[in-house]
């Protein structure tokens, strides 16, 4: 479903070149749970950003369902659409909008999707979806709160709910437990595992081996290339017909 091949990414700081990715390749199948491991600074976040079209590679390509994301024929609009509809991104630092309530934060991807003129029609559904998702992540009682009134674990669950808002094909999570203590982190992981059980494709970055054990497949990023690791769990027998998460 998602295929990154020969990704190169170099950062130039003054005259120093940091070659972060040097031909990294990764393929993700539908309903898979892939974990990317690697030392700090090895380029895990960089790779994930490229997979989510938040950043562009210097060389190499990413194919999503057979379409090239960074090809000459693909415009910004297509990448924006991809970010909005196909990918849900969970950040290490939650990145919620402080002025909005929990519910509104979850609704934002829907607000990006739906135009002003049809909003009256779509509002009910978006709101309902967001409420159900918050129920799903166990936060239905904090709907009206502001992000700064929540704990780190709760914020991350809001961020996950937001990532799932537009029923994305792919969930990308960059160290979602990195800022949380072990028990809260375990809860988040349990939530992700359940989502995956329900058919959600997930790519997650972590450098915690215990966290990684939840995945079907682990890959290791080192020296700018992806190396396969041992499979941690059973591979999904067959791609499910649905990628939808039953709330």
């Amino acid at each position: 479903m998602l295929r990154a091949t020969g990704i190169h990414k170099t950062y130039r700081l003054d005259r120093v070149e940091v070659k972060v990715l040097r031909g990294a390749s990764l393929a993700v199948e539908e309903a898979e749970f892939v974990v990317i491991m690697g030392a700090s600074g090895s380029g895990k976040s960089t790779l994930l950003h490229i997979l989510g079209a938040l950043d562009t590679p210097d060389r190499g390509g990413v194919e999503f369902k057979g379409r090239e994301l960074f090809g000459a024929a693909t415009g910004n609009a297509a990448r924006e659409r991809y970010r909005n509809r196909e990918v849900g991104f969970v950040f290490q630092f939650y990145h919620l909008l402080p002025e909005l309530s929990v519910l509104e934060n979850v609704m934002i991807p829907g607000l990006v999707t739906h135009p002003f003129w049809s909003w009256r029609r779509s509002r009910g559904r978006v709101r309902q979806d967001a409420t159900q998702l918050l129920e799903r992540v166990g936060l239905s009682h904090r709907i009206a709160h502001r992000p700064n009134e929540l704990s780190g674990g709760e914020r991350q669950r809001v961020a996950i709910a937001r990532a799932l808002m537009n029923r994305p094909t792919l969930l990308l999570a960059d160290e979602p437990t990195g800022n949380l203590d072990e028990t809260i982190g375990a809860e988040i992981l349990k939530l992700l595992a359940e989502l995956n059980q329900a058919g959600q494709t997930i790519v997650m970055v972590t450098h915690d081996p215990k966290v990684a054990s939840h995945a079907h497949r682990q890959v290791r990023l080192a020296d700018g290339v992806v190396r396969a690791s041992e499979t941690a769990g059973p591979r999904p027998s067959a791609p499910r017909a649905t990628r939808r998460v039953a709330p």
Partner: protein
Amino acid sequence: MAGVALGNDASGARPGAFARAATRGYNPGMYKWFLAWRYLHTKLIAFFGIASVMLCVAMVLVVMSVMGGFLDTIRARSRGLHSEIVLEAGSLQGFPYYEEFARYASAQLPQVVRLTTPVVYSYGILRVPATTETKPVRVLGIRLGEYVQVNDFRKGLYYERFYPGTTHLAPQPLPVGGFDENGAGRLPPDLEAANARWRESESDREAVEEYLRNPFEKAPRPYVTPAVPGDRVFAVDVGGPHYAEPENYGVIVGCDVLFERRADGNFDRHLCRGADLALTLMPLSQAGNPTGEPPVKLPLRYADDSRSGIYEIDSLCVYVDADMLQHQLAMDAQPLVDGGFTRPRVNQLLIGLQPGVELNAARDAIDAVWLRFLGTLGETVSEADERLLGFVRVYSWEDLQRPFIAAVEKEKVLVTILFALISVVAIALVGCIFYMIVEKKTRDIGILKALGASGRGVAGLFIAYAAAVGICGALLGTALGCVFVWNINDIQDFLAALNPALRVWSPEVYTFDKIPEVVKRADAAWIASIAVLASMIGSLIPARVAARVWPVQALRYE
């Protein structure tokens, strides 16, 4: 197809949907309106933007309204000052053949000319024998009955309002009031009757009540000045109301010539109606030389005072009967040494137009008729008369008042530009405020972009935000400006009560009693929409910065 479809969401990878997205940008986003609205009422900084827009809008609106009102009043008053068309002699000697021309023009242009009336003018010295006060004045000889039909002169007459039909310029005695059995002042019967007519027809009931509370101040004979100066003053004497001889020609005096204007816009009249006045005149010969006769000294009666609203006129002009003045100035037919007579002369011929006639067209038509009229005179005209006729020009009231109006117009433009410049500061301020917001919100912009918002969409968010700030500021500013303008005289009175030095608008200096307090809708709409536009322009650069935020850069760190 230009690109490839990446979606298989509920709407499906419809062919064409992608191409549309590629050309228009994936930019539908309700979020910008939602967030613009949210930022508007949660961010304190927005209130600074709103406040600055508001103050600018209010300021410009106040200035435009006051200056515009000023201008409109001047226009309206100028219009009613002379008459629509004026045939002006261009010299103090005046011009002959005015009656002939009046007949000729009426016959030639019956659908244009409604009425003509001659005016004689000169300069003289007005003296108040009772107080030995003297004033240089411009003396206008008018036919009152016709004069009030070509302009608004009647509206400005004071006693004529309370005693309609009693003001005239013909020889008149001094009205003397008496007292009834209760000790209340009584005027001669015709004045009382006129006043009763006024009380019947007056729509301003307050003015009637005010009159009934204090009909007039009393100046005991033989003096003509009352103990307390007041609005209406009559001579009183024991015995019944009556008229006292001798009969003298009446004079209408410009209100600022003799009387002091009070802060409330009314006047302190310290002379009774009908008081003796004396006017000294210097007749000129046809060639413009003094005739050699001693100056003419005319005894007159103060019949009324007039107020045009233009200080230069009200502080200078007195009005007497045209034929009397013409005679006194030796501008009527004078015997010549070789037999025969000179032609009577006047200084102006005022022409009132038929309703609906276009002013400039009428002026041009009358100008043409004037030239034709000169042609009909032929050889009969004496050389001196011919010279005088050569000076005559045809003006419309706009021509006459143009220099004055143009000056105020320029002033208005100047002040408006000045304040518009100040408003540029407001644009800059909105720009700064938005720049700060964008800086502070870089991370949020990155988040929105990571969730699929386009650069244009984010820019749109900030422009919508600025528009919202502009609209709020413009609405509040319009409200503030309107309230200020509507109450500007009260505000000024309040300030003046605190400290007289704070009285900016002094009715003694300006020609208007009150600061104009009308806001024109068109002005308000213009200013408000320009303010909204200006705030949006102010937000353009910050919006551009926001559009260029690169999601990863904004999101990498906490």
